[in-house]
């Protein structure tokens, strides 16, 4: 009997990593200057989760893949124009605030409602995927709380690999200290997997997949439910690091002389 998984990938959108970020104080707390104008991308580790999920769904016929994303729907639509060309999925958008200063637990609560609202989702077959940490808040908390809210206590974080066995059980590799992996076996879904980089490269753009995805994405975005997140912590200060080092520049110096200086420095206590 084939393994059928219902895979729900939770992924936010974040500023393109190459953008300059400047924190400001907004009416609801800290924010980024011109945040809504910044080019956005799918959160990098969550994007890895999406590609791994698509691979898993393809390897297990009958499986389904949803992408649940909480963001302002106009920005989400922009990001979907490129993400939709990568892999086939059904978007479950949640129209909500953007940014790293929102509260992880409130975000998880909104995501849990969205997951529960997915028509045809069988929680017993569900694998909740996402990035183990986002590139904005980076708390590593959202998926854990989401799992608790869904009653799923088989959870794995920093996942780099999943191998599904014929009986539906699977082996998971989680990152631990020292560049090592903890290897676990789980009897099967449901489970929560917070992905690190995984093993798969970013898929090439496929316009046909993009067109097929966008047929369902646009109506979904129009119907996206608006949510208001509860207040998070009280921010006392938010600032860019001021540290600027006085760099001594050494030019036109033989490699051997540089090497001696470096070795003296490396070996000094």
């Amino acid at each position, binding site marked *: 009997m084939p393994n059928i998984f219902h895979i729900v990938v939770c992924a936010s959108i974040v500023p393109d990593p190459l953008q300059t970020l400047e924190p400001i104080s907004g009416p609801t707390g800290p924010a980024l200057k011109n945040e809504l104008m910044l080019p956005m991308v799918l959160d990098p580790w969550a994007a890895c989760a999406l590609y791994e999920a698509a691979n898993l769904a393809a390897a297990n016929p009958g499986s389904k893949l949803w992408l649940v994303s909480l963001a302002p729907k106009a920005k989400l639509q922009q990001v979907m124009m490129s993400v939709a060309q990568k892999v086939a999925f059904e978007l479950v958008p949640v129209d909500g605030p953007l940014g790293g200063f929102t509260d992880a637990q409130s975000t998880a609560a909104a995501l849990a409602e969205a997951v529960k609202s997915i028509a045809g989702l069988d929680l017993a077959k569900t694998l909740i995927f996402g990035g183990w940490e986002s590139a904005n808040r980076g708390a590593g908390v959202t998926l854990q709380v989401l799992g608790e809210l869904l009653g799923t206590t088989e959870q794995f974080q920093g996942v780099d690999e999943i191998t599904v066995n014929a009986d539906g059980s699977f082996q998971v*590799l989680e990152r631990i200290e020292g560049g090592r992996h903890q290897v676990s076996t789980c009897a099967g879904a449901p489970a929560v997997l917070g992905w690190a980089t995984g093993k798969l490269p970013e898929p090439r753009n496929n316009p046909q997949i993009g067109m097929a995805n966008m047929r369902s994405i646009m109506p979904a975005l129009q119907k996206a439910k608006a949510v208001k997140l509860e207040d998070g912590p009280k921010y006392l200060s938010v600032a860019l690091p001021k540290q600027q080092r006085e760099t001594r520049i050494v030019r036109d110096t033989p490699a051997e002389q540089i090497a001696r200086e470096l070795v003296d420095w490396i070996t000094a206590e």
Partner: protein
Amino acid sequence: MEKILLLAHLDESGSALPRAAREALAAALELSSALAAPLTVGLIGENVEAAANSMVGCGAKILATTGAELSQPRYATDSAAIEAICRKAEPTLVLAPATSRFARVMGGAAQLLGGHIDTHITALAAADGAPRATRWFYRQRVEAVLTRTARPWFLLLDPGTRAQWDGPVCTASVENVTVTLPPTRTQVTCIRAPKQDEQTIRPDAKLLFVAGAGWTKKQADGQVHVADAEQLILGFLKGSGASLGSSKSLVDQTGEGQTALPFMSHLNQVGQTGATPRHPKGLSTCCHGEEPHVVGWRFIGERRAVNLDANCGWARGKADVLYVADAFQVVKAVNELLATRGKP
């Protein structure tokens, strides 16, 4: 009045505390003193006797949940153990080290206990009788100080941000907390690690060596020299005992099947989508890029760089010393010197 609970688990030896836990204990003691709040320690593991004895000197009450099932990190069992200790201690503030074991469970445990959580805390302080925490956002690019009034407030403290506590070993009085572990469908089978001589990630190393994509680019003779780069980098790691970090572009080459360094993986990646390790010293070679790329060595103490561009944003204003030179030649000469002087 605040009541502080420090949670800790045993390390892989099964008897000692990880360094991160001793660092968190130091932070907990400081906060306890600043807030005049009593401190309780909660230990999790199969047999916590030796670990408890090693922290008697801190003067805190010690609780423990023990059992064979708690010898291994696993979400369901760890969250149950944390819940049991917290219900016994009834803390308002819960501090814990951000080890991989606690990082994967503490958010869920906070939710289970109706608490709130903040992670990656790099500093703790007290002002006006209330705690405040410092952490980074947007992958170490924005720093914030925050506080909460809701309790219990869980704070996961990043390792390497403070000195560890140490004290005399005496016989401890430990109060056992009974926990009913839930049925779990997960079994931890093993730890998978590179062979000892192939391990390039060394969290305790004094030096981080960051290799950038320049190592696999065409050199002055118009050719790429990946084999030479591999030999030089591995030779340096062997001679210096350094930990190896890499830029994203270099590890991506490995994943995309381009000519790349075979020992490099995404686990080595530092920066916005990688790690931000903490080491006393860092040496970057052939790394280029502006501020967003530089976060990989945000938490490195002394920094030096070798590259061919004197104006490179990776180094200028970010490194203490920038050597404008060919990294192939410099590292070759460094390796020869290290071979004659011996490993530091």
